[in-house]
């Protein structure tokens, strides 16, 4: 779960990190009055959870009311990488002499947290990492001990941070690590950490992503979650609790298990089709979940055919088949052709009871995918979606 900048900054400030004076605004008038109380110059910053907001026009500096009005007007309501901007953070601009990067994340390969400092802050840190990895000092942390003060110092001196602020920056890194740990974060970053004229340090931006799996022990953070999907279908799928990713092809895909669903996507591609989505229906396949999954996929106007591939595992194939039949009962006629393939435990029994009037049944994964690709191709000229499908095809 990604927190908004303003939420992350509240938590940072609570932990004792310096952040600029700021307030949230939802309208141009709000933004203006906040700017006045905070004092010009201000930064007006789109609150959407995507990177590269600055380059995309989501952050503007305003020196006065006129500029603030223009900026707020431009940013509020804008489409930023597919997300609509409903709120801006109006924040005192910081006079700085230097921009640093400070971050904590999990190094998955090592199975240990890593704390990082770079004197090249204020820019895309992934580019820094790719182009001059030596510019980022890293300290792997033993999660049982937490970060030792010497590690924070070593990272700071190793990154070549000015010695005047080295102690402060080491303190920021330690605090950030503790916050990261306490809040079960996946990532905690300050980029840039601004070094001010008077040798202070201020967190000018704030990233805090929380481990979804740990939200159960952080109800306060879970309460901060705001639906912010790039698109209505992703929102709907999220509400149903599916892992869903919308893509640009016309073959809708439903399956169970990330690896098998990805494989189904790959096979659609392999047989010349184009996947419209990734949808992992998860464990079991009760009627309601099947119906919900079909709802999501059918709602995608790009979709021309659907392949439904379930490997029964412990869940028995006959149970899955009943779930599918029940779900199909709700439809007078299916909006798109659906090819079902059941495998695993009691798959044969399951295939036998499937309602083949409404759906195609295939015995093998390969067969099911090939059939769906065929159906999607032949219905490509349909009135409801042909144009969009063509666009989808072009864009690849």
């Amino acid at each position, binding site marked *: 779960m990604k927190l908004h900048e303003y939420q992350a900054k509240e938590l940072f400030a609570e932990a004792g990190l310096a952040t600029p004076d700021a307030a949230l605004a939802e309208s141009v008038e709000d933004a203006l009055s906040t700017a006045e109380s905070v004092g010009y110059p201000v930064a007006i910053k789109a609150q959407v959870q995507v990177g590269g907001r600055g380059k995309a026009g989501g952050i503007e500096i305003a020196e006065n009311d006129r500029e603030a009005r223009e900026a707020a007007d431009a940013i509020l309501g804008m489409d930023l990488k597919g997300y609509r901007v409903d709120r801006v953070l109006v924040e005192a601009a910081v006079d700085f002499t230097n921009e640093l990067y400070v971050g904590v994340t999990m190094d*998955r390969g090592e199975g240990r947290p890593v704390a990082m400092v770079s004197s090249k802050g204020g820019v895309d840190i992934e580019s820094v990492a790719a182009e001059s990895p030596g510019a980022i000092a890293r300290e792997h942390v033993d999660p049982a001990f937490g970060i030792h003060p010497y590690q924070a110092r070593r990272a700071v001196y190793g990154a070549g941070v000015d010695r005047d602020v080295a102690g402060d920056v080491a303190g920021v890194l330690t605090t950030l690590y503790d916050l990261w740990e306490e809040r079960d974060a996946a990532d905690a970053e300050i980029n840039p950490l601004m070094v001010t004229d008077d040798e202070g340090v201020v967190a000018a931006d704030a990233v805090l992503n929380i481990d979804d799996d740990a939200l159960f022990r952080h109800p306060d953070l879970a309460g901060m979650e705001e639906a912010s999907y790039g698109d209505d279908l992703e929102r709907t799928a999220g509400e149903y609790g599916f892992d869903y990713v919308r893509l640009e092809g016309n073959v809708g895909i439903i399956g169970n298990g990330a690896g098998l669903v990805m494989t189904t996507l790959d096979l659609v591609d392999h047989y010349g089709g184009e996947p419209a989505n990734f949808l992992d229906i998860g464990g079991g396949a009760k009627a309601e979940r099947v119906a919900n999954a079909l709802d999501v996929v059918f709602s995608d106007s790009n979709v021309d055919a659907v392949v439904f591939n379930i490997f029964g595992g412990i869940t028995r194939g006959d149970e899955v088949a009943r779930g599918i039949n029940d779900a199909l009962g709700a439809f007078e006629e299916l909006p798109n052709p659906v090819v079902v393939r059941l495998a695993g435990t009691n798959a044969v029994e399951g295939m036998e009871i499937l309602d083949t009037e409404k759906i195609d049944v295939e015995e093998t994964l390969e067969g099911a995918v090939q059939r769906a690709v065929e159906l999607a191709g032949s219905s490509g000229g349909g009135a409801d979606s042909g144009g969009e499908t063509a666009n989808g095809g072009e864009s690849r």
Partner: protein
Amino acid sequence: MSVLVDEDTRVVVQGITGGEGEFHAGEMIEYGTDVVAGAVPGRGGEAVHGVPVYDTVSEAAREEDADASVVLVPPAFAADALFEALDSPLELVVAITEGIPTQDMSRVHKRLSEVDTRLVGPNCPGLITPGEAKLGILPGNIFSAGNVGLVSRSGTLTYQVVDNLTDRGLGQSTAIGIGGDPIIGTDFVDALGLFEADPATDAVVMCGEIGGEDEEEAAAFIGSEMTTPVVGFIAGRTAPPGKRMGHAGAIVSGSGTGTAESKIAALDDAGVSVGDTPEEVAAAVEELL
């Protein structure tokens, strides 16, 4: 004849009184696994499927001479259950639980480095030596005994590949689901090393997916350390960069490594035949044997 588990493996089921625990303990027993005890705090003295339940894993291990455990407890209590299993001590711990916080697993990972116990998982279907023992939630009926080792990050994909193998009469020595979480106990290299050392395994299927660099590391290991032939499969070739698809590991950053291309190229370099479909994988194995 197999790796990690066989008919002599004596298993404790942690969380045996829970819904999942009770169900899968029953399935394991039915498959023939020697489930000797359950462990659930406060439930000592009870019995499930005729198996005695103890309050602590230590007591269960001591009283029933167990050497492995299967962890089927909810994610909030799973890390503690793993620490307990690692301190009981046991030779093998199989963590099925999905959704354990990553920082919890980081602490477990640290502890793992201090003990001799092997952890498989978490967020995995477990492992099976067909006809002998099943530790986990895999559907036993799709497996058949044979000489093909299988290691996979993914659950249902594993079943699919096994299905294709079994269809061709290619039985399995042991199949290991290592799990799709960012931090796991046994990785590809560990599992491949076990198969390499197992005289009963004549070929290995390795099912990877996009994200992380485990498959690249596995390729390096295969190239330098293995004589047993390996057939590979990588899921997620068509996944667009930057999109997260289910598994925490299954995300492509677009920065070169972690992509399907990178993994397939690394496996190719190591002499691994990589199938485009599960069916091709099974065919390649058949050709090798």
